[in-house]
């Protein structure tokens, strides 16, 4: 099996010889012109608790020389022929996404759960519904409040970073609680972004922390399969 880490241009530097991936397998490059993918071989044994860190470490090693398209952690294919086939089918879309994040990195900004998410009342179920309907209505209300919370967090960060060369912003609920707002920044702009965020954190407002730079995991989505 083939564990995928990231997609790059074929002309970008290959992985260092001593770079190890998941299962301590060496990371290699497979070229599907004009692109290339960093991969390692993988057996079918179970996943290790440290695998996400290892995955990110490999993608981060790629980031050192050129911005890659990071693959999601569980991207596993059968063999290199399958990799070639799938990458060939999406060559143009992959190249387009790669061009969009070229020279960029991602910064993570953590925002406290917005008040709107916690305090807004759930819409009441219309009369005549049974428990199933009530459940669905309540679930829809929770979802709406969550989406409104994400928009509010996104707006908060956008406003806080006004004037800086921010290329894109997306917000998602964080596994650690609160909202994780991802900011796409040109590499040479991250110093200014970090300084601004540090200032915002010191004010004690809703923006409580930040990490970075990350490979642009949050900005490489595709519109759909061919």
């Amino acid at each position, binding site marked *: 099996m083939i564990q*995928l880490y990231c*997609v790059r241009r074929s002309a970008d530097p290959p992985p260092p010889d001593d770079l190890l991936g998941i299962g301590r397998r060496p990371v290699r490059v497979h070229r599907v012109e004009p692109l290339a993918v960093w991969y390692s071989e993988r057996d079918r044994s179970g996943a290790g608790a440290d695998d*996400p*860190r290892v*995955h*990110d*470490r*490999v993608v*981060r*090693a790629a*980031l*050192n020389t050129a911005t890659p*398209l*990071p*693959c*999601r*952690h569980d*991207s*596993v*294919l059968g063999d290199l022929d399958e*990799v070639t086939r*799938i*990458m060939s*089918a999406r060559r143009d879309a*992959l190249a387009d*996404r790669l061009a969009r994040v070229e020279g960029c990195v*991602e910064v993570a900004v*953590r925002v406290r759960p917005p008040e709107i998410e916690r305090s807004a009342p759930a819409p009441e179920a219309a009369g005549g519904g049974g428990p199933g309907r009530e459940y*669905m209505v309540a679930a*829809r209300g929770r979802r709406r409040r969550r*989406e409104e919370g*994400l*928009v509010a967090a996104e707006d908060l960060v956008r406003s806080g970073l006004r004037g800086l060369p921010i290329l894109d912003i*997306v917000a*998602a609920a*964080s*596994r*650690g609680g609160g909202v*994780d707002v991802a900011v796409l920044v040109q590499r040479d702009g991250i110093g200014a972004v*970090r300084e601004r*965020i540090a200032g915002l*954190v*010191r004010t004690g407002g809703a*923006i*409580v*922390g*930040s*990490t*970075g*730079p*990350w*490979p642009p*995991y949050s900005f*490489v*989505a*595709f*519109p*759909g*399969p*061919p």
Partner: protein
Amino acid sequence: MEDERGALEAGGDFEFWQVGESGEQTQLSDLLNRVLDRGVVLTGHVTISIADVDLVHVGLSAVLTSASRIRRGRRVPEQTEAPEA
């Protein structure tokens, strides 16, 4: 309050930093949010759900968007096309 860290294990000359809430847990949360939920998917699965109820798991062998992008699709104009199995 501010805690800026040095390079990660394979970070080389591209230094990783952390501001505000510090600690291994915070960094791990940001890592998992990215590595597990986002990024290009060349194979995997997708869960079709309605009103937060997971209904169908579909195995895939194609390039798809991340789950968070699917959920946010209605708010991002260029992401309005839902992926297909």
